[in-house]
């Protein structure tokens, strides 16, 4: 039986939740959506049912643990499920100041709700203009970012590109698991907010295989509109005797394309680089390392078979090496081309944010009992500080991958498909407050057989 997907929409007052909701509802996707709101909104669109709910939060125990859930949601969804053929989606919009925890926990704690609905994803809208102040002032704002599967950095027209890059680096530092989109007036495609299956770990991992990567291994991307032919990529002296680079053909310029390219690049980057001396040709789609020891400007060759947008993902920013791309042997030869668009991927700075992500990757089989004891203790002691966790584990003696996820101290795990030929390894990510990366990594490693 297919469960009805539920999307939780959070974000501070003024972050653009209602605008996004309007977009979702008015787009011609042919889906019937039920919206559960806590404040009376203006929206009322033909294909949607708007239900007003009182945000009733209460503590509930399932025998061994206590947590807070949303009682009103249990009732409203309990009624909605009696008309299941009529809705394809449910969107729960929370009040600006709401902690997303109780909403998410409701889907773990109530068996009836769990049987009929699946938590599809948590979308957090971030007001790019005001988020730096909000992060300083309210823990709700921090928690909304920490819980998110998707972060929409909205109102990007109200800040400079540099400020935006800073903000992105900061929220990325807090939540490494989330996909980030930039938007003006909450204009993001509906498919990036609905139908995420973010709580379905298997699908989520296929969509974002690099969710454990601490940060991108490149700092800059420039996309150049190139004709068929030969180009010179030249660099002046810079801070490093080498620089890694990946060139990608048909790289788009909008935010989603850039991120898609970045994800592909991360995979290229994981392969050993091809060492290139000055004068060598740069192959596309390969991780290369440019040798830059010699003094003065050094040139490399880039050949394009047909007119295309080519993205250069570079380890350092273009400015650090005064990187230039210029045609060779024809009109405009030697004259540097301006990039069609560029993006600086700000490396994660140390912020004083207490919220952060801890990713653990480890090869080797894990002892189920030791793991149970460790997770049990971790959740007992730190459950309120751990907002989200996801991962898969290689349990000794089990041919299947053990997949788990959790919200605060609620933990949900089961064996899924067999490992087959893929290498057995463990990947875990925790998002929480004041997490001790070293201790967690050490303690998890101690669970190996």
């Amino acid at each position: 039986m297919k469960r009805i997907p539920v999307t939780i929409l959070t974000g501070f007052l003024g972050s653009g939740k209602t605008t996004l909701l309007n977009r979702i509802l008015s787009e011609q996707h042919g889906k019937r959506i039920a919206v559960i709101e806590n404040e009376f909104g203006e929206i009322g669109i033909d294909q949607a049912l708007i239900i007003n709910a009182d945000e009733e939060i209460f503590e509930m125990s399932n025998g061994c643990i206590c947590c807070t859930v949303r009682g009103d949601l249990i009732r409203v969804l309990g009624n909605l499920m009696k008309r299941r053929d009529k809705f394809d989606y449910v969107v729960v919009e929370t009040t600006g100041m709401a902690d997303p925890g109780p909403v998410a926990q409701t889907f773990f704690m109530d068996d009836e709700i769990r049987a009929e609905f699946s938590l599809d994803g948590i979308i957090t809208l971030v007001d790019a203009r005001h988020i730096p102040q909000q992060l300083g002032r309210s823990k709700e704002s921090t928690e909304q970012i920490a819980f998110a599967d998707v972060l929409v950095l909205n109102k990007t027209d109200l800040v400079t590109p540099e400020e935006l890059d800073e903000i992105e680096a900061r929220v990325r530092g807090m939540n490494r698991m989330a996909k980030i989109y930039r938007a003006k007036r909450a204009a993001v495609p509906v498919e990036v907010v609905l139908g995420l299956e973010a709580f379905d770990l298997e699908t989520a991992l296929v969509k974002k295989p690099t969710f454990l990567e601490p940060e991108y291994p490149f700092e800059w991307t420039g996309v150049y509109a190139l004709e068929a032919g030969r180009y010179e990529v030249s660099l002046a002296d810079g801070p490093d005797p080498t620089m890694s680079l990946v060139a990608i053909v048909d790289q788009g310029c909008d935010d989603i394309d850039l991120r898609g390219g970045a994800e592909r690049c991360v995979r290229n980057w994981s392969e050993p680089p091809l060492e290139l001396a000055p004068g060598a040709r740069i192959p596309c789609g390969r991780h290369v390392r440019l040798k830059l020891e010699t003094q003065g400007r050094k040139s490399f060759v880039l050949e394009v078979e047909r007119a295309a947008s080519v993205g250069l993902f570079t380890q350092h920013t273009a400015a650090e090496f005064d990187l230039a791309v210029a045609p060779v042997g024809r009109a405009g030869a030697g004259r540097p081309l301006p990039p069609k668009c560029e993006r600086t991927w700000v490396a994660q700075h140390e912020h004083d944010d207490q919220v952060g992500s801890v990713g653990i990757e480890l090869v080797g089989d894990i002892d189920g009992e030791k793991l149970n004891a460790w997770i049990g203790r971790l959740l007992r002691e730190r459950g309120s500080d751990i907002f989200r966790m996801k991962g898969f584990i290689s349990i000794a003696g089990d041919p299947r991958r053990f997949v788990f996820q959790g919200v605060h101290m609620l933990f949900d795990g089961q064996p899924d498909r067999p490992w087959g030929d893929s290498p057995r390894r463990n990947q875990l990510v925790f998002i929480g407050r004041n997490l001790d990366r070293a201790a967690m990594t050490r303690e998890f490693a101690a669970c190996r057989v």
Partner: protein
Amino acid sequence: MSGVTIKEPQGVLRSRWSASVDDYAIAGGWALRGDAIVVADSAGGVHAFDGTTGRSRWSRRDTHPGGLLAIAIRSDTVTLATAGQDGCVRLWSIEDGEPRRSLPIADGWVERLEWSPNGDYLAASCRREVRVFSAAGEEVWRSPPHPSTVSALQWLDPRTLASACYGRVTMFRIPNGSEARRFEWKGSLVSMVHSPDGDVIACGSQDNSVHFWRRTTGKDSMMSGYEGKPAALAFDDSGTLLATGGGVAVTVWSFAGRGPEGTRPGELEMHVLPIMSLTFAPRSMRLASGARDGAVVVWALEKSGRGKPIGVVQLQHAIAGLHWHPDGEALVALDAGGGVVAWRVEAPPAARRPAGKTPR
């Protein structure tokens, strides 16, 4: 789906008729002195069927824009009250299905509806408020706001109304509305029943327990260890047995002697998915249980709470409601697919008519 794979009813159940409504059959009840059964579906349809043949007497659709949430049949068996997502209560004649009166309550779902035992008053809850109307539809009382949404209503006697919400059960004297008593307990109460004498109030709680209070002594007890939230609760007419759902087993607490505190309950096991509906036959210790697995089981219980299955049948969809005919010799099940199925139920051996005469 179910461990019980039976097409034809077994044991005391004999097929009688079946009918259907447009959507999930959410509520129902016998009316017209047992001649008809009224069934409401979640799309807002209300339908009356002949109790003997299952033929449609009348149907009304779109009674509440947005959907219907509750119905209540008055003790005169001819007046129906319905409530829905449109924030209204409506009164209807069951004779002909004609509307009598529409009572706007508030902007919100009207989720609970109960007639007082003698039919003098109708209580309705919307969000945190309860309103009481006269039989003619005049408002006689309005409660102060409860601390959270009202989850259940019960009339303990013709003048005492009990409401349940998060953390408490409150009793009000009607029509003056004075608060007669309050029982508090930190937990989300999702269902409520009372013993026929009004002494015991039992509530199912979201955290998988049943909590009950005795009004005479003020003592309360908690029965925990359920697999799920006990949304289905039923007292038998003698007040001896309290049947509770909350998992795949029916747990029956016996109030005989000094129980149920410190006693072992009867555990009735046959369903494979959680129990959704429990109802005792009138003046009897026969219990009907319906579950998410689509099975309906009739049990013969002893005073101890233990018992055995004496009839079983498997339907296609989850069982949303079970309604014994007032004479106890027929049972109607409502299911999540809109099915309405009626069976004749053979009388217990002791009550059988003399040989040679065929039962009805």
